[in-house]
């Protein structure tokens, strides 16, 4: 028995002209095909390869490894847990500090505080730079023999250990990464705020709502689409962090991150499918929270 909904759907599909149908197929089909070929096929191949031993050269050398690569990572490799911790700290720092700061800045600038154009350009500036360039800049500033150490009158021999000091390097790196992330979030949020109808705010203010109440009850909910983008971006930026740290250290061992470990096992002389296993772990860590989050949100929207 057909429900009213499916009948309606069938009818609307039937009403598509041939040109419409062609356009739809082309616009949806071609990107989907490219997505499948360039993204999903390699992803599936990587997942399969993560269960093998292979040096990446001759197909006939592939040997079945079962879960050995994963076992090796989970049981033997201390770098993995350091990487997990570092990625986790990165995520927590971004979620709890950097992203809220970006939102706060956007809100203040949108309110038109004194000198807002100045602040806007100051915070926006690092967003134009790639993280690799940011890495070069800050490495030059803080490394032994670098600018800051030089200002402090420290030569290479007695320069303060910053990048190599496990007590502080996490916070310095997160500070540098936030330098860009805050501006990025600010920019995204600001563009969202511009589209919020000022009449809503005025109406709430007339009804006697406080500043915080207006933000919490009116602006934040109307900004839902931007919020979703920001949450997803924060998650992905934290988990896929790579370039900044790679530029500063050149190796993944002092401040390991999952992506650095993927790279280390894929590049260079010793190609090993442990790299594929790291990539799969990273994929799961990225995809599971994002899909869960999006599903919850879309369900709410449907309601």
């Amino acid at each position, binding site marked *: 028995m057909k429900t009213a909904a499916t009948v309606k759907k069938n009818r609307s599909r039937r009403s598509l002209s041939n040109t419409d149908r062609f356009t739809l197929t082309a616009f949806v089909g071609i990107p989907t095909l490219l997505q499948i070929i360039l993204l999903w096929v390699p992803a599936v191949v990587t997942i399969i390869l993560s269960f093998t031993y292979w040096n990446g050269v001759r197909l006939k050398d592939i040997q079945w490894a079962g879960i050995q690569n994963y076992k090796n990572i989970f049981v033997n490799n201390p770098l993995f847990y350091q990487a997990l911790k570092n990625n986790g700290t990165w995520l927590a720092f971004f979620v709890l500090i950097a992203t809220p700061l970006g939102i706060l800045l956007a809100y203040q600038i949108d309110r038109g505080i004194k000198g807002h154009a100045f602040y806007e350009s100051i915070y926006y500036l690092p967003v134009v730079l790639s993280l690799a360039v940011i890495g070069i800049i800050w490495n030059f500033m803080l490394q032994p023999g670098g600018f800051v150490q030089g200002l402090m009158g420290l*030569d290479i021999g007695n320069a303060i250990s910053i990048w190599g000091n496990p007590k502080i390097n996490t916070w310095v790196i997160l500070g540098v990464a936030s330098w860009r992330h805050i501006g990025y979030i600010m920019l995204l949020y600001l563009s969202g705020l511009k589209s919020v109808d000022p009449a809503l705010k005025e109406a709430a203010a007339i009804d006697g709502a406080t500043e915080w109440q207006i933000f919490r009850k009116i602006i934040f909910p109307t900004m839902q689409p931007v919020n979703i983008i920001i949450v997803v971006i924060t998650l992905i930026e934290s988990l896929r962090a790579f370039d900044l740290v790679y530029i500063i250290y050149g190796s993944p061992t002092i401040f390991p991150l999952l992506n650095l470990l993927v790279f280390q096992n894929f590049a260079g002389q010793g190609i090993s499918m442990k790299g594929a296993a790291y990539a799969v772990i990273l994929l799961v860590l990225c995809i599971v929270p994002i899909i869960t989050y999006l599903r919850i949100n879309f369900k709410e929207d449907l309601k």
Partner: protein
Amino acid sequence: MSEEKNVVSRRSVLKGAAIGGAALATGSALSAESASAATRLKGSTVKWTTRGGGATGDKIAKAVNDAFTKKTGAKVVAQQVNSDDFQNNFAQILQGSPDDAFGWMAGYRSNHFGELGLLADLTREIGHLKSTLPTAAIKGSTSPVTKKPYILPTTYYPWALHYRKSMVKDLGMNPESINNWDDFVKLMTLTQKKGLVGYSLGAKGGWEAMGTFDILNARVNGYKYHIDLLNGRAKWTDARTKETFKYFAQLIPFMNTNFMDISWDGMRDLLLQKKTGAMMMGSWFANDFKAKSQADYDDLWVVPFPQINPKFGRDTIDAPLDGISVAANGKNVSGGKALAEFWASPEGITEAVKAGDTNIYVSKSFDTSSYDAFNKQKLAVLASASNIMFFLDRDARGDFAGPVVGPAIQSFLQKPSDINKILENVQAQWDALPKN
């Protein structure tokens, strides 16, 4: 190297035999080809990659390649690439459309790719050069598995103890006689008393400290044990390995505290600025001393790492061997081989040196009479050792040296008391490697 041959697995012997058979089959085709090689070479294009080296590297490449063109009539198209990028993407480059010939490194780095069929077999070319090459260099260029050379050896340099003669003299010591562990410790202690760094070390990249580990292990346990350890025939958890780390731990109090923040260039600067007593490093940085001033260069000195265990004396040295390899998938393999042979030949070497190459060549034809005191000392240091190691990341497999040993040494330097746990972990990771 010879020990490796004894422990070749049955499977790899079979594999070697199979490849050898295939090579024999193609070998007959090659000799037919060699007759017409000269005519075929004329007018063909050979592609060459210079690995780093900046303007000097380009100048040297141009000089040698031009001489090759003049001799054979083959055109050479050269490019320079970033050395690290080239290394990191080497497997992909060789499987794509590689240049025909390029500068490369001996040891695991060429053997591995040769055994996989990505680097051309250079048996014939090394045969032509036989009279000019020392046996050790030929042995060092030959894969212990397939018994074939995949690189034509050209240059090498010592990893040894460097210091400034003037600083050692100021301590009241003789810079020519830092021979044993006690001399070495005295040098470091006295330097440190002056408020300077006794022994400078960089560990930021994860590979720099491998040089110190290599030489300590060779001094404490001998060459054979070291090579056995790197190839899985000795255990990282062995008491002998731990003994090596005991000596390593003795060095830590003399080190700069920011070793995790600096790399080789930081170490060089420490010595350049007279901030450190001694350091273990490859001699390549000497050119930077010369660039600063002749006085700095004249003050620089290099000696073999001091003796620890009298049984082994100072018989071993890390001396990474570089050379020319030919891509098996290149467009012009025979042209690549001819060019590689030219680079490694006395003619090619003469051109390179004329163009400003300061490297030490292994070739017997290489003229060292015009050498300055430092370079003569480098030669003496190399000649004093009877066993040549290639450096840890060339003596051990690539999926082990960088990803496992490097970080293990870094953790040890940060927390030496954890050494037992660290070594157990290294052994566990070795055991988990796929065995071919």
